[in-house]
């Protein structure tokens, strides 16, 4: 089994349209949609968790409120936040790829 080493390019090759007169507005719109997407992901996850907790363990909301993460948990959370930042700031990387560093398409 080969282990693929080269990830696919992050951005599609070709023309990137600018809709608004200021590219910053395009990027803000994009960030707004991405934020909505990640919020939807978080809602689904919270919903799954709370249902499982109640169904399987009969756990209460007070226990969730009192929870303190340990180091391992915190590291996982940091990775998750970094992933969110990566997704959210994609429009700015696209802009850089398109206008500044065209051709260096690897992550």
């Amino acid at each position, binding site marked *: 089994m*080969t282990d693929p080493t*080269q990830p696919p390019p992050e951005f599609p*090759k070709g023309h990137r*349209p600018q809709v608004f007169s200021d590219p910053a507005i395009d990027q803000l719109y994009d960030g707004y949609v991405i934020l*909505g997407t990640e919020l939807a992901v978080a809602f*689904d996850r919270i919903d799954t968790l709370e249902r499982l907790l109640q169904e399987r363990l009969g756990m209460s909301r007070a226990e969730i409120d009192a929870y303190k993460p340990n180091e391992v948990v915190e590291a996982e959370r940091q990775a998750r936040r970094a992933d969110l930042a990566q997704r959210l700031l*994609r429009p700015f990387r696209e802009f850089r790829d398109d206008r500044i560093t065209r051709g260096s398409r690897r992550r």
Partner: protein
Amino acid sequence: MKDFKQHALLPTPQHDEQARQDFVGALRGHLSGRVMPGNYQLFERRVAPLFAAEHGRAPADEQEIREWMTREPYYQFWSALQRRSQELLWESVIDPTEREWSKLIHRARSKAGAKASARTNARKRGSLRLDAALTVPRYHAAADIHLQPGGYHTDFTADDVAAGAIYDKGINLYMGGALGAENDLMGNTLLAYLRERHPSRQPKRILDLGCAIGNSTVVWAKAFPKAEVHGIDVGAPVLRYAHARAESLGARIHFSQQNAERTDFCDHSFDLVTSHIMLHETSKSALLRILAECRRLLKPGGLMLHLEIPRGRTPIEQFMHNWESYNNNETFSRYMTRIDLTAEARGAGFTAEEVALEEFVPTMDVTQMNYTERFVWNILVAAKHGVGG
């Protein structure tokens, strides 16, 4: 989307990956159903009257509409969101594909590979023939069509199938699940047309051009189980995927990597030559060569059927469809708006009596059309003179 068939070659999304795909689907459904139609109202109630006040007439074509509409904040809002939803669509599909990449390649190899039992079954199995020397046409290499990073043709590793897996789930999301559990709406539509208009035809040799992952080709193989069915495409990763997918679905198809502009099949070797939404992803000169190649390949009496997306009847509809050309790397589709397909077919050697362009209303419920609320398919038909078929 709920009833999309999860077969062996599709990655299984994890919780958050699934949530991301689901949201992209919901967002695109909302954009298509609730936001997009506002562009037509914007045109009728604001842009057309403003245009008339200045010019004393209605806009003559989609170019004139373009100048005015692209300055309108509402259109800009929709356009920005539509483009982002398309990029999110691929991102949401690429994540699980990347995670299961090695596994998918492995599964594709074992589905396609000659197992011990295969020898006895050899006649029941399809085949795959790749051509590493084939040049990917410029119209695919220059830009990634509909923004799929790497397009249909890029191999990122040996025996890659990623482009196939990404396309399979991607088009399911693109059409809000309307393509059906096996992405077979297009194949079923063209088959329904054949059954309705040419009910006595029983093609023995069938060729499907631009077959990609073979989603439409499988429909023909299943409808005519005794026929020898071929599928060609320029993309290697989609063909590897197509072959493994067809084998796992029990459809016997011979896939080969070839350019439809010039294939290595003999003259008069097919009773039926089809394509499904391929022509608008070629070029002006390629289109002519492909149609001429179809004529060469057809037996006397053979039938050519190309299913295409109509590009609108009114200038505003054309402008909306052509959003894809300016914002979604469907570079050629805006030229398709102005092309008379029957004239092209005549230019490629068919006689006026042989060709027709037909409108065909989909038999299935197409709920998410992205750029229009009225939908019919276009079918370019040619029945080659002669006896047979």
